């Protein structure tokens, strides 16, 4: 088992003919992901790599192929529109890799997705992989292995670092989700924690957080109240320079400055094993499982 994507996932790639889109589509196909369609306006009717049909619109792609998941590699100027389009076409999961989106535009997209019951992962994220089943996004498949650890992370490359540690030490993964580092994201830590808790094949969970915001504190609270499975966590930015203050309002709204120390303390309080270095993930997990 796994969360959000599995071997049944039928993927449409938005921006399949672009530089990043074509490169990673090949990687996803090699990994075994069911890439059933691609979309590039104006290139409808062609095929990608002589195999995957390309459509002008996501609606056409869904109608013809039954795609249920979309991954977005289009440039930032088109990524907001791409999310609206995918949700309107009826996919149930959208993974937006594109970075550089305006937060104010995200405030419009998110309720549109919620109204339609569509899950978004990202934007500005590395995507999701259920090792051995399906890879949607850019997480390198070769560093992952099937297994029972669920991983959720705000970071991209730090995720690879930790997954690599897990795999090298025999801890395969049920699913790894990169939720993205933007202020407004579709799927947060708690969504993933809940899904991992309900996934019978996940026996341990890794959370990778960062300074800024209070998502990790809320996630810690959720772990304390709802999780039965062991969780270990890391917060990047312990030595980061004091971030640019967001004026009075920032302090007022968060009631917190979002420092690493504060988040690590919240993890400790919730019984989450706190990693000081990425390499510690394996020992901490093994000690708790």
């Amino acid at each position: 088992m796994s969360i959000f994507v599995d071997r049944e996932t039928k993927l449409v790639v938005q921006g399949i003919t672009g530089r990043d889109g074509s490169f990673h589509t090949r990687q996803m196909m090699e990994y075994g992901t069911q890439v059933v369609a691609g979309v590039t306006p104006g290139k409808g009717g062609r095929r990608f790599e002589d195999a995957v049909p390309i459509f002008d619109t996501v609606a056409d792609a869904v109608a013809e192929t039954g795609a249920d998941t979309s991954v977005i590699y289009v440039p930032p100027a088109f990524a907001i529109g791409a999310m609206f389009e995918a949700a309107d076409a009826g996919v149930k999961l959208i993974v937006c890799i594109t970075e550089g989106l305006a937060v104010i535009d995200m405030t419009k997209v998110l309720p549109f997705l919620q109204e339609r019951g569509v899950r978004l992962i990202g934007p500005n994220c590395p995507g999701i992989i259920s090792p051995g089943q399906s890879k949607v996004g850019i997480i390198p498949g070769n560093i992952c292995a099937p297994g029972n650890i669920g991983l959720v992370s705000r970071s991209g490359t730090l995720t690879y670092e930790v997954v690599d540690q897990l795999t090298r030490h025999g801890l395969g993964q049920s699913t790894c989700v990169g939720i993205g580092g933007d202020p407004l994201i579709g799927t947060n830590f708690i969504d993933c924690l809940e899904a991992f808790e309900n996934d019978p094949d996940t026996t341990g969970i890794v959370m990778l957080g960062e300074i800024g915001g209070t998502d990790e504190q809320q996630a810690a609270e959720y772990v304390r109240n709802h999780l039965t499975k062991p969780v270990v966590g890391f917060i990047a930015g312990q030595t980061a320079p004091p971030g640019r203050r967001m004026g009075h309002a920032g302090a007022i709204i968060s009631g917190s400055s979002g420092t690493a120390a504060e988040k690590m303390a919240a993890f400790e309080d919730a019984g989450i094993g706190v990693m000081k270095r990425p390499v510690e993930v394996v020992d901490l997990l093994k000690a708790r499982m």
Partner: protein
Amino acid sequence: MNIHEYQARELFRQAGIPVPDGEVATTPAEVEEIARRLGGGVVVKAQVHAGGRGKAGGVKLAQSPEEARAAAEQILQLTIKDLPVQKVLVAPIVDIASESYLGMIMDRESQRPVIMVSPAGGIDIEEVAATTPEKIFKLAIDPRYGLLSHQAMGLAFALYHDVKQVRAAARIMEQLYQAFVTNGASLAEINPLITTSAGEVLAIDAKMSLDDNVVDRRPDLEALRDESAEAPSEVLAREAGLTFIKLDGNVGCVVNGAGLAMATMDLVKYYGGEPANFLDIGGSSNPEKVVSALRIITMDPNIKAILFNIFGGITRTDDVANGIVAALDQFSVDVPIVIRLTGTNEDEALAILEGVGKTALKDMDEAVQQVVRVAQEAA
């Protein structure tokens, strides 16, 4: 991106918010001239990207053009939170009957812009928030409908009793929301929002932070950037498409991804070193970015060693290797470079590096230990 008060005032004015007249100046002579033109008493305010200007002596009242000039002379010599004051705003003194707070922020939790008001405005608003949070009124704005007039009225009734002032404040809130949305703000504040003894409602201060991703696509907003307030190396880095923050250590770091960059710095510190910078070369790197990164990092005379920590995903490690080779070809780097490189196209990358006699490690922990060691040896 933070903008100056005088710039935020202008964006507020464009949205229709009543802001008293005022002009920006860089010399005491200009300030005297502006004060003469405005007539009456003026306030001279340091324009720096820092809070607490008043407490740092950056805000002074003057009753005459001469006094204004003298005030400007003092203020333009100040350095507030490491930032030298290069500009001042000169504005008429306004007769204040009451001070309120009005702010708007992009809120992660509700995923909406949140508007906040408090009848207890002024410099101690943070104190108010901490000790008497019930005096802060908040509302998350549904972006599908915008700030509705009854919502603004409801908040304005928390500030004023006189219905004319309530309507004026509600209008300012709606205008502030427009300014917020139109300019892609992450924060917009009016503190204080005042009433005059004649009953007018005015915005006396103006603060705004903009979403960098909006600034990138809006030349009019990009023009508001004050590069004189930034370190030259940070300006260069931004122009090269890199995210860079200069620090005080001696281990230069070139990393792909903000999270890994921070974790790398944390690990340098863990092993007893001091990072010289935060530098994220971003996702879709190309060799040219790597060249720029090395050029910028080596501008820092404190640097004793450089660490590349690259875990390729969307970043292709061969691009990075090519960038290192190109940089070494274009200029000499006098400090040791430790390269950690794994992930997408790593075999190609290793071959490229070998071609110029360089090796690379695969393990982050090992690479960080090594770079800390060589930096300490060189120090």
